């Protein structure tokens, strides 16, 4: 990676930050809402990527998302905890569950881990449906609109969480954690011999990933005002979590962000054109990416497109 600071990059970043901060003043309520859903999806994508950096491909992020969502909703309905504190609580409960699940599934490699995470999310869905007294069952739970329905405040809150997520990814990428995660992903036995404790780092990655996923869940339940088990524990969310970063480009900061934007635009377009099955894009993207662009959009840019613009005298 090119580490030298360039003015061009600096100005672009500054412009991006100003644009994102001023965005709510520029657009109407619909685009503000769209931006909130995009940021939420970016958080999910980036936090999935954190876990994937240790070689653990989760197909059950919806489990952690749902736990965050329900923790926030239940705490609000039972003890009227303020929504933001509820989201923090949701994130914490997700972290605890992830720590437990992480320790239990440590010995599972590759596909076994993936299957266990699907089973985890689906099992939670069944448990939630069958214990309506506590969880609201199939009817779900509802909460009043977040900040009294003020979307600007919601926008800045989710933007803040997204900034934290990106900061966490940046920290992981620019510290020794990056070497540890990469070594474990490439070859766990070798990493172990090199003095990296795979257990510690794998569970750590799972917990960091769960924190942001759980927080996003808590935010979702308050923002959406209504959650049902089929949705928050559903396959749709788990798939979205993994398709966006894979499409954008794995193990990068910009990949999951870029991937989310493109995938969500496609999905929003399909949502208005077909009444059912707009997730068909997710399936198609997954197949095409694995077959034709395994490094995602970022890899395509780096290897194929950006060399075209480079001066020939190099």
């Amino acid at each position, binding site marked *: 990676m090119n580490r030298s600071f360039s003015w061009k990059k600096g100005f672009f970043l500054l412009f991006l930050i100003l644009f994102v901060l001023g965005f709510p003043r520029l657009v109407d309520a619909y685009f503000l809402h769209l931006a909130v859903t995009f940021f939420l999806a970016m958080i999910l994508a980036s936090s999935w990527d954190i876990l994937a950096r240790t070689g653990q*491909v989760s*197909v059950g992020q919806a489990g952690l998302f749902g736990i965050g969502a329900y923790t926030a909703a239940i705490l609000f309905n039972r003890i009227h905890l303020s929504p933001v504190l509820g989201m923090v609580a949701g994130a914490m409960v997700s972290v605890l569950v992830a720590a437990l699940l992480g320790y*239990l*599934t440590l*010995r*599972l*490699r*590759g*596909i*076994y881990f*993936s*299957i*266990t995470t*699907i*089973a*985890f999310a*689906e*099992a939670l869905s*069944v*448990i939630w*449906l*069958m214990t309506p007294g506590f969880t609201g069952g199939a009817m779900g739970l509802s909460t009043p609109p977040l900040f009294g329905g003020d979307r600007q405040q919601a926008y800045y809150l989710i933007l803040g969480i997204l900034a934290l997520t990106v900061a966490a990814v940046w920290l992981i990428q620019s510290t020794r954690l990056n070497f540890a995660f990469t070594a474990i992903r490439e070859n766990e036995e070798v990493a172990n011999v090199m003095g990296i404790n795979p257990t510690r780092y794998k569970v750590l990655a799972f917990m960091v990933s769960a924190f942001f996923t759980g927080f996003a869940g808590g935010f979702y339940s308050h923002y959406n005002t209504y959650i049902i088990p089929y949705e928050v524990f559903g*396959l749709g969310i788990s*798939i979205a979590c*993994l398709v966006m970063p*894979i499409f954008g480009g794995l193990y990068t900061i910009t990949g999951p962000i870029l991937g989310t934007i493109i995938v969500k635009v496609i999905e929003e377009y399909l949502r208005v054109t*077909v009444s*059912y*099955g*707009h*997730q*068909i894009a*997710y*399936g*198609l*993207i*997954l*197949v095409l*990416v*694995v*077959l034709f662009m*395994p490094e995602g959009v970022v890899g395509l840019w780096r290897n194929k497109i950006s060399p075209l613009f480079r001066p020939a005298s190099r």
Partner: protein
Amino acid sequence: MEWADFLQSFANGLLIAGLYAAVTLGLTLVLGVMGIVNFAHGEMVMLGAYNTFWLFTLLGIDPLLSIGLSGLLLFFIGLFIYRFTIRPILNDPPLNQLLLTLGLSIFLQNLAMIFWKTDSRSVITPYSGISLSLGEVHVGLTRLLTFLIAVGLTLLLLLFLYKARPGRAMRAVSENNTASWLIGINVQKTYLLAFGVACALAGAAGALVSTVMYTFPMVGFKLSLKAFCILVLGGLGNIPGALFGSVILGLTESFVGTYVPEGSGWAEGISFILIMIILIIKPTGLVGTRRE
């Protein structure tokens, strides 16, 4: 009375186990021969079920007759899928294969939703209501037939694998594909045929599914998860293990349905809980060896 309850749930569990076995056979074959866990296998079952439903609804073709038709249709769909998606990634890391087949599964689920909406459809034949009584145990005729056909399909597959030349080639390739190549087996062709046969089995299983369950776009995914549970129970990639796993899962679900309060709801979660417990205790599955 209680003894009769027990026998009844035992019979129900055994009958549904037949269906589960039919669904799992193809998955086991692909895993055994090619070392790929095909997440889209359930969607092949779903397509077989829809094919049977439409043939029955539009043309009045009996679901039992369309077992062969569904199998044939899915055989060709399988060849197509293998040629254009699976073959290019045969040598990729297992996680790429997982992501690709998962993508196929999501794609087909949503395609089904676009074409046929999310309605639950069922095939009701003139003989759907008939049930046979054996002492105090009552068994629906369709369920019994699906069970017998599932057993028949299993025997047919075993016969194919042990007696027919291409079947024996599949077993050789599953043991060691380099050695098979050395002794003149066309490994690529064997993979192609194995994938096609697995999809044909899924199509046939789908025809059975349409007669005893609702057909809806997610039915394949639900069955896939059950099939994973069976694989984990029975060891990965061997057929006797898959049969054993099917019986265990079928009986467990049935008994939970009978003896636990609100059991039929909880029974839906049994497979997930079993997957987690078994993999956590013994990461290579209950019996059998690790495959990388």
